[in-house]
């Protein structure tokens, strides 16, 4: 039987609940094994999710009991002195992510616009594949490049130069060590760029051709088409892109640990070393003293988990409101 004949047949069936009821009744016989396997798969996955949440929650509870909820925003992270406060780590995490977004979003958006609106098709394809390949580069390789290539350049050239720029110099004042919040932000920007570009492109691609043609028919220039017809319609998708990029940046730990300088103190400027939640976990988990020490590091993980889950849930919701089929590509293309 050809698929067409079959689907024609299927189309003649009653729809919705009645159809489901009929189908269910038909296939009750003889599906025990398959159904068991399906349950097993779903159950295993569910167990993993629950185990992760419960495990992190319970292992960090000792720290929260010891330090209270104020752990999340209060000051000093100094395990040797028994001071466990994630405040500065949270600050640095948000700061590096924010600066990374400031650097990355304009570039990502501009690239997406170029690829979807301005570039000829023979160019857009290969270029977007190229950007997509950037997504595949392991974060450790980006971190290695940041540590061995970018750090000397930043310490000796970039940071002193930025400190001398007239209007913005105060942002970059202070000793140019190299490893710094700025460098970590740059590395995060590089890593989140492909997500932004690909999701924004999808968002632009989802704008109906009719909208663009209508604008053109009214005499709009290319820029006006983008600004008036494409951007507004793609708003949800672009917001989703930014949100998911933020989620990725918040959770990146290894590459940041290699370039941030590990100083858990309030940064005076962007060229000061810092320490994020992720970098602190990388550097301190293995050596934390069992008991309150380990529990506090896991509590850092709990804070990070809550942050990223909230941000990612928001991003996924935005994606769904824009276009459902993009959801899975977001996961694979991180």
């Amino acid at each position: 039987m050809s698929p067409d004949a079959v689907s024609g047949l299927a189309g003649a069936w009653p729809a919705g609940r009645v159809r489901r009821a009929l189908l269910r009744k038909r296939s009750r016989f003889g599906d025990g094994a398959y159904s068991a396997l399906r349950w097993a798969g779903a159950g295993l996955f569910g167990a993993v999710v629950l185990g992760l949440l419960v495990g992190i929650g319970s292992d960090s509870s000792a720290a929260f009991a010891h330090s209270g909820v104020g752990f999340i925003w209060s000051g000093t992270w100094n395990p040797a002195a028994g001071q466990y406060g994630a405040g500065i780590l949270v600050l640095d995490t948000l700061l590096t992510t924010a600066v990374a977004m400031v650097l990355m979003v304009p570039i990502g958006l501009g690239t997406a616009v170029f690829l979807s609106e301005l570039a000829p098709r023979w160019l857009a394809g290969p270029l977007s594949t190229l950007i997509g390949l950037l997504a595949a580069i392991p974060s450790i390789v980006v971190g290695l490049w940041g540590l061995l290539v970018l750090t000397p350049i930043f310490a000796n050239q970039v940071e002193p130069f930025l400190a001398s720029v007239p209007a913005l110099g105060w942002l970059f004042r202070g000793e140019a060590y190299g490893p710094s919040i700025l460098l970590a932000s740059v590395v995060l920007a590089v890593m989140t760029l492909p997500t932004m570009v690909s999701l924004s492109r999808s968002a632009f691609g989802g704008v109906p051709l009719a909208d663009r043609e209508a604008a053109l028919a009214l005499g709009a220039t290319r820029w006006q088409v983008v600004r008036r017809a494409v951007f507004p319609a793609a708003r949800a998708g672009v917001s989703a892109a930014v949100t998911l990029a933020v989620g990725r940046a918040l959770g990146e730990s290894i590459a940041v640990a290699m370039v941030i300088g590990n100083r858990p103190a309030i940064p005076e400027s962007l060229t000061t070393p810092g320490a994020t939640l992720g970098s602190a976990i990388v550097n301190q988990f293995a050596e934390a003293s069992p008991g309150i020490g380990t529990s506090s590091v896991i509590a850092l993980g709990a804070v990070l988990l809550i942050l990223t889950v909230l941000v990612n849930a928001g991003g996924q919701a935005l994606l769904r409101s824009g276009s459902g089929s993009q959801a899975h590509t977001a996961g694979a293309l991180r």
Partner: protein
Amino acid sequence: MGRVFQGLCVVAMVAAVAPLVALVYYTVTRGVSTLSWAFLTHAPTPPFIPGGGISTAITGTAEIVGLAIVLAIPTSLLAALFLFERSGKLAAALRFSADVLTGVPSIIIGIFAYAVLVLPLHQFSTLAAAFALAVLMLPIMIRADEEAMRTIALDLWEAGIALGARRGRVARSVVLRGALPDLVTGNLLAIARAAGETAPLLFTLATPLAAMTLLIYTDGTQAFPSAQRTAWATALVLLSFVLLLSVAARLVAWRISRRAH
């Protein structure tokens, strides 16, 4: 205004491509000179004893990723079939969990694997590392699989059920076979991502020589030029492997779209 805007977009494009070019350039130029057949096939030696290589890291990564695939693929396929065929609160909750779990930082998955498999058994192990990577891949694979099934095979599935076939039979012969290229693409991308992860391996392996990503991390942070060269060369090997997987995934996707016409 239009010209300015177009110019800015071109600048943005260049700025986006530049890091990629720089990354590949530095990795290739700094890593290729250390690369050799001996380097790939010999075991590591202490810093000043020549003749060492990264064979343990290559085989280690292969073992860990291989084991992770064995753990993750059956589970993800079955869970995806579960989500595909069932509706209701449980399926919705699982789907939501998968979406959210794709965003969990990999370092947290590493902590989870440490707590579950290293601490109770009192040893670091390849299994713990593979478990961590499998947990990483699971949500990505599940969502990609389910989407593939929905877009490709929904009609075929309905047809199969309508003809009275058992669900298991329909799943096997119709859904999986029909969505196979998309499934392969999605899974290959997830595997490529997992193979490049370092954070989950940090707390689960006994020695940095057991995986390429970990070796890059420990050698790259050493001050000895020889160790840094090893790090670059290993990064080159890892990069090639991961890019190959990604390209393979895209090739599969491209062939489907060709066949569909």
